[in-house]
């Protein structure tokens, strides 16, 4: 079976600093795949290349058989890749529902249909009761959920989640894990996530890719990754205790 996404030897340099260094991996349809690594390891740069915000200097990215590296972000989204931003970017003056309706309008030209789909998505993300609130009035955990809802409303095949658990307390993290697992199971959305919260990574991911100084140093199921001495040394450190 051809993979949903395949990333082959991609690199990105910023004025001589190698942010991502010949990283390769593939993602099968229906998989949940996590990218972990210390701050500055190149995770977000990797994401931005897949999402079309940055063009790689080398290497290719193929999504559903089409080469997408260097494509603009809106075209990548139209092909079926939704993304969230690590530093959330809601449309502050719009209501929560309107924020998500914008996403739903990508593949629906009728505003009424988009609005009702947006409500379904909001219900999934526990935001239905807050649908009339302006996005600017949401708390950070709610904004993170809104970010996911908005991306999900574009009917992605692949969802890129950039640290959606950061800043959440453990009970909120567990709820988010449950939500994401539900999306993956019920809607068949393949998920690629960047995450620092190991509790969530362990619970969700089938495969984990570890980046360090831009290079992939390990790829394995989570229970194996946390035992990998290289990973412990470079990243997990004291956290590896659990």
């Amino acid at each position, binding site marked *: 079976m051809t993979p949903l996404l395949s990333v082959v030897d991609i690199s990105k340099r910023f004025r001589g600093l190698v942010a991502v260094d010949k990283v390769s991996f593939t993602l099968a349809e229906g998989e949940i795949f996590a990218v972990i690594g210390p701050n500055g390891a190149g995770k977000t740069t990797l994401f931005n290349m897949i999402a079309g915000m940055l063009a790689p200097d080398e290497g290719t990215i193929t999504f559903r058989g089409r080469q997408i590296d260097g494509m603009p*972000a*809106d075209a990548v*989204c139209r092909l079926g890749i*939704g993304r969230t931003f690590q530093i959330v*970017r809601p*449309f502050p003056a719009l209501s929560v529902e309107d924020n998500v309706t914008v996403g739903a309008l990508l593949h629906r030209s009728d505003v009424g249909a988009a609005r009702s789909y947006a409500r379904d998505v909001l219900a999934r993300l526990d935001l239905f009761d807050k649908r009339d609130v302006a996005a600017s009035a949401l708390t950070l955990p709610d904004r993170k959920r809104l970010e996911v809802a*908005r991306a999900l409303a574009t009917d992605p095949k692949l969802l890129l989640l950039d640290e959606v658990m950061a800043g959440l307390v453990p009970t909120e993290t567990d709820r988010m894990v449950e939500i994401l697992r539900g999306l993956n199971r019920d809607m068949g959305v393949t998920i690629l996530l960047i995450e620092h919260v190991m509790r969530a990574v362990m619970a969700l991911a089938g495969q984990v890719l570890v980046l360090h100084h831009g290079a992939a140093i390990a790829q394995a199921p989570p229970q194996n990754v946390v035992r990998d001495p290289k990973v412990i040394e470079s990243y997990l450190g004291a956290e590896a205790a659990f």
Partner: protein
Amino acid sequence: MRALWGAMTPRGKVLLAVLVVALLAAPLAVNRYLLSVLTLTLYFVYVGQAWNLMMGYAGQLSLGHALYVGLGGYVAAALWVHFGIGPWLGVFPAVAVAAAFGAAIGWLGFRFGIEGVYFALLTIAFAEFTRIGFDHIAFTGGAGGLFLPYEEKRLGEWWNLRGGQDFFYYLAFALASGGVVIAALLSRARLGFQWLAIREDEIAARALGIDVFRAKMKAVLISSGMTAIGGVFYAFYNNSLFPAQVFDIGRSIELILAPIVGGLGTIFGPVIGALILTPLGEILIAATERLGIDAPGVKAVFYGLLLMIIISLVPNGVWPWIVRRFALVKHKP
């Protein structure tokens, strides 16, 4: 349209109906002078709507909309004066020429990432060099102006936009109503949502699959084309066009005040803004004359002071404040 009507509370519906009926009946009740003030008010409702689509919804600041008024007016007037082509036909090339200028400005600005105040400077620059250009075009009378012949015997020719004050009043009413309807429909369509998303956060909009360049181009094309129709009205109502007057930056500022004071990105903002500002200007002229202090600039000083007071009291515009205060629109859309 039904969505818009349905969004209003009974009180809002009654007020809108009263406003429409009052405006329709106005020629029966008021004198010629007041009717001319109302005509001007409705004209500013219309061009304010056109500008508001671009700024209030799509978030693109144009400080050169007088360009489109002037181009629309000049094209239709020149076709009429030189070739006898009536304005109902002339409006099409008028819109096309203005939209072509809009497209050029939009393409330069949006393709090369000229944003915010720099984009505004670009719009001013186009209006300015067009003004200077028209000073030297002999075909349209150059700096000396272009005059539309005013003949009593043709006054009834509505098909040539020749008519009296009542005729132009109802024409302005139709324009203003049309502008409101267009703004209402667009703001509730997919394109309207795309504009709002771009206004709020362009990068996030792109990440949701919106072709930002295209949506912005649509905004500038629709806005410039609509404004040009206002320009045709302006030319045939005033019967004269001078480059130094129609393309002046003062004209561009004048037409953006109503939507700003009324409420950016709202459908009734330009309406309420024009209903406040245009009569206010006239009242100030009358008041300063009566008080015997009609020195040059006095009116502008008071006008400016009142503007500052209004904006400091309701920084988001008068309309959003009215909606909150008097519950004219249902909480949930």
